[in-house]
């Protein structure tokens, strides 16, 4: 069975192949990439961990929800886990639909829901050797045992 998670580099071309078809004229792709954080010392990589069984189940439910809202859209998504270097993608979403509005809306819906529903956590690995769990509110949480 196809998995929504991978430890390999994400391939946009592969996702596009999963959603494209001649009747779907508009395709929107979103890539989330590991940023070189602007606050504090430079982030060299982020370590992504997850509750993997739930990630699979929740992505299935999320795409089913999107399919009900945009029945003509076809959506593919892949979340990378493990240590991801700065500049590489952690998530890729492709949504193809007959018209561009649906493609944009479905793609945006999926990334917003990912942030809300998909149980994945990030730990920033910094140049100076420190590690910080990323709080989704944007404020890094000091690691108590570090």
């Amino acid at each position, binding site marked *: 069975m196809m998995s929504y998670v991978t430890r390999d580099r994400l391939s946009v071309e592969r996702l596009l192949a999963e959603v494209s078809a001649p009747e779907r004229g508009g395709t929107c792709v979103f890539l*989330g990439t590991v940023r070189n954080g602007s606050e504090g010392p430079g982030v060299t990589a982020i370590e*992504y*961990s*997850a*509750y993997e*069984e*739930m990630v699979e*189940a*929740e992505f299935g439910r999320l795409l089913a929800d999107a399919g009900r809202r945009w029945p003509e859209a076809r959506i593919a998504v892949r*979340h990378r886990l493990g240590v991801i270097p700065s500049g590489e993608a*952690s*998530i890729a979403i492709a949504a193809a639909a007959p018209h561009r509005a649906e493609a944009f809306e479905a793609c945006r819906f999926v*990334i917003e829901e*990912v*942030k*809300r*529903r*998909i*149980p*994945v*956590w*990030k*730990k920033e690995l910094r140049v100076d050797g420190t590690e910080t*769990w*990323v*709080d*989704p*509110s944007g404020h890094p*949480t000091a*690691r*108590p*045992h570090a």
Partner: protein
Amino acid sequence: MTATGTATIRVRLFARYAELVGRAEAAVSVSLPATVGDVVRRLRDEVPAARALPERPLAAVNLRQVKLDARVEDGDEVALLPPIAGG
């Protein structure tokens, strides 16, 4: 129809919560009927380091997010989830 008796619940901890408690998994027993909130309280009673967890963490039962007043049954897997930061 409410189950009675004692339920054994597998509790899983992730990311920062696993670090705080020093383990990724625990099993707790609760008297039925019981809620996820009861499981959290029982964990905090039985595992001292679990007191570092928030009293009302995000939780899932059997791979699905639930509120803390959701019922648990024997054999359920309860997961305590730090604030989600996917994507």
